[in-house]
């Protein structure tokens, strides 16, 4: 590639003063007012906020799919204007994000074709990505022949094969059942630890945010600002059974919950910007 991978701890993604106002047919909606935050290389950050707070708008701006009204987004210090090659997005609507006319393998391969990779390299990346989401046998199937959870795995595999610097995930598990969801959470956590990719994970589920993230960004209600940044000081080794019943997990999720409630009321939030007491 052009330059070496960023070291852990260097900033990978910079969002500065992001503001997005939708204007149309006499209505002016300020979806995002003023957002500033940083995601370091190799970090897994969860964005959580009340519903309708502009999470998806924010993510689309970061992905270069929407142009911000003001402010800027920097990926490795380069300004994002249009979808950058170093980013991959996993959408919530897997059924509408995978191409139903292509088999699983072709779906994963299509973005790679735009990258001028050799056929052998492409095949290698596709096989490796499908293998790592546990779908090595499904390359020849059509997406609609698979269950919802498996389809979302395909979407994740497609993102992995693309070898992005930053992986953006927009409420990826909101549409799957609870058990599948737990499996997928562990899959994402596992992939993150194995591959050291940078992940920005948007969710409305507080438990999910605390369980997955190294850091949780709590957004206010619309017009959106960052209400609080919370470091999740849970051990790196997490599992559904133990982590979710750990007292620290309960403290953190309660704290996030209170912040979101405060955000909904439009208040300044309890003990803003102070980490919850240990």
């Amino acid at each position, binding site marked *: 590639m052009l330059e070496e991978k960023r070291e852990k701890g260097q900033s990978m993604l910079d969002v500065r003063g992001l503001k997005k106002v939708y204007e149309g047919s006499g209505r002016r909606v300020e979806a995002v007012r003023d957002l500033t935050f940083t995601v370091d290389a190799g970090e897994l950050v969860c964005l959580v906020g009340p519903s309708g707070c502009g999470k998806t708008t924010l993510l689309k701006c970061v992905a270069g799919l929407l142009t911000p009204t003001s402010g800027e987004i920097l990926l490795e210090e380069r300004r994002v204007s249009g979808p950058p090659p170093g*980013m991959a997005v996993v959408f919530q609507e897997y059924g509408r994000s995978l191409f139903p006319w292509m088999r699983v393998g072709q779906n994963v391969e299509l973005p790679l074709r*735009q990258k001028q990779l050799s056929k052998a390299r492409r095949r290698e990346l596709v096989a490796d990505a499908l293998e790592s989401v546990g779908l090595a046998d499904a390359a020849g199937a059509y997406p609609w022949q698979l269950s919802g959870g498996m389809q979302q795995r395909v979407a994740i595999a*497609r993102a992995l094969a693309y070898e992005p610097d930053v992986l953006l995930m927009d409420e990826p598990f909101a549409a799957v059942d609870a058990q599948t969801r737990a499996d997928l959470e562990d899959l994402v956590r596992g992939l993150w630890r194995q591959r050291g990719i940078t992940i920005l994970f948007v969710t409305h589920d507080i438990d999910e945010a605390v369980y997955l993230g190294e850091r949780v960004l709590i957004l206010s209600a619309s017009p959106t600002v960052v209400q609080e940044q919370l470091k999740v000081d849970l051990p790196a080794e997490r599992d559904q059974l133990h982590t979710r019943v750990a007292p620290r997990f309960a403290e953190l999720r309660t704290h996030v919950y209170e912040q979101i409630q405060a955000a909904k009321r439009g208040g300044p939030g309890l003990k803003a910007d102070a980490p919850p007491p240990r």
Partner: protein
Amino acid sequence: MKLLALRLFFVLALPLLLLVAWWFASAGSTDVYRPPLRTILTTFPDVWTGERLRADVLPSVLRLLAGYTSAAVVGVALGTVIGSYRRVRAVCEPVLEFLRAVPPPVLVPVIMLFAGIGDTMKIAVIASGCVWPILLNTVEGVRAVDSVMSETARSYGIVGAARLRHVVLRSASPQIFAGLRQALSIGIILMVISEMSVSSNGLGYTVIQFQRTFAIPDMWTGILVLGLLGFLLSVLFRLVERRVLGWYHGLRASSRRSS
């Protein structure tokens, strides 16, 4: 094997029944214009010789193919452009609706003025009638590309020709095929009409020629040939469609099962 036999039975039962009914109903007919089916069938091999197939059926089919193919190319290309840009659509839509409402057969005399009475005229007539369903369905299909798919494509850098080929046209293909199917029957009708009005060979010409020379059983065989041709083309069409839209039928079946 048994299943296949049963399906074959269902397919053939009604046509056979109709033929049998026709056979007996017309058996004792002395009406010159309605000869017995038996007479028609015995005339058939005499009329549709290899020579006639080459001299009349082949030119007809070639004209149909040329007109239909050019309509498909133009319709899909224009439809993609119109469907992709809202502004272009706003400008074109009223005109398209008007042009579509003009019955294609009235174009025969008009096109004759410009294109003469040769093959060009017939191909132009067929193409000008076939293009509308293809064009309008393509516009709808291209316009209806899912927003999430569009964004997925953009975020992975699938733009330009790759986007057109792998995303837009594939996503619109069910609608495009619906247009192509409509266009096929319109094409056959226009092929016959253009040959009936002015021609020196072709299926439409043959039928009208038999009628004018009072070769009534021969005329009836021509109608049978036209019916068979239409049937054959629609079977071919369905084979192609199954191949291209296999994913679409599977997708629909799977969403029906889950809902």
